[in-house]
């Protein structure tokens, strides 16, 4: 019972984080802030959802598969975000800054 409540909590918070990240990706003004929104919430949101699912499952095979998914997401998601940011910066895309802020080019 208590495990159920914890897992529901994880699923709900994970879902909320997913939505907030998606709102960030949709609403933020430029590429880099969007990427920030997406990658930060993605890791925690997916982690919480997977954790919620782990708490719901009883078979060891299922749990180990979920753990593998989590490991792969943890490895690949930041890596691709990093590579993407680097490629974008390389191609001449600059972070959006407030026009008044002036000289903060990096």
């Amino acid at each position: 019972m208590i495990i159920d409540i914890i897992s529901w909590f994880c699923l709900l918070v994970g879902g909320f984080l997913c939505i907030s990240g998606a709102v960030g990706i949709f609403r933020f003004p430029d590429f880099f802030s969007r990427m920030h929104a997406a990658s930060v919430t993605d890791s925690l949101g997916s982690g919480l959802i997977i954790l919620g699912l782990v708490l719901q499952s009883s078979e060891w095979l299922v749990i180990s598969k979920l753990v593998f998914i989590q490991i792969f997401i943890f490895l690949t998601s930041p890596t691709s975000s990093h590579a993407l940011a680097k490629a974008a910066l390389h191609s001449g895309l600059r972070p959006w800054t407030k026009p008044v802020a002036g000289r903060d080019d990096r």
Partner: protein
Amino acid sequence: MFTAASAAILISMLLALGRAFIGPTLYDRILSVNMFGTKTVLLIAVLGFLMGRPDFLDIAIVYSLINFIGIVAILRFFEYTQPSKDNVTRADEGEHE
């Protein structure tokens, strides 16, 4: 509860899809495809539980791996077009501003 989680994932998929449509630069589109892929992995995992057969998580594992390969491929081949066609990037930036 799985329903709520899958609904949340679907909503975020919709928002990512919207960004993939309007995203002024190609990098925005790549970003949203990447996010979409992660959300798909989660959705397939949750759906397995929702439908009562969670032993099909293999599909989600494949996605988490293949998605990475896809992003690497996009970056790799995108780099080929970038240095020679500087004007493309400029055009994208102009559109963005």
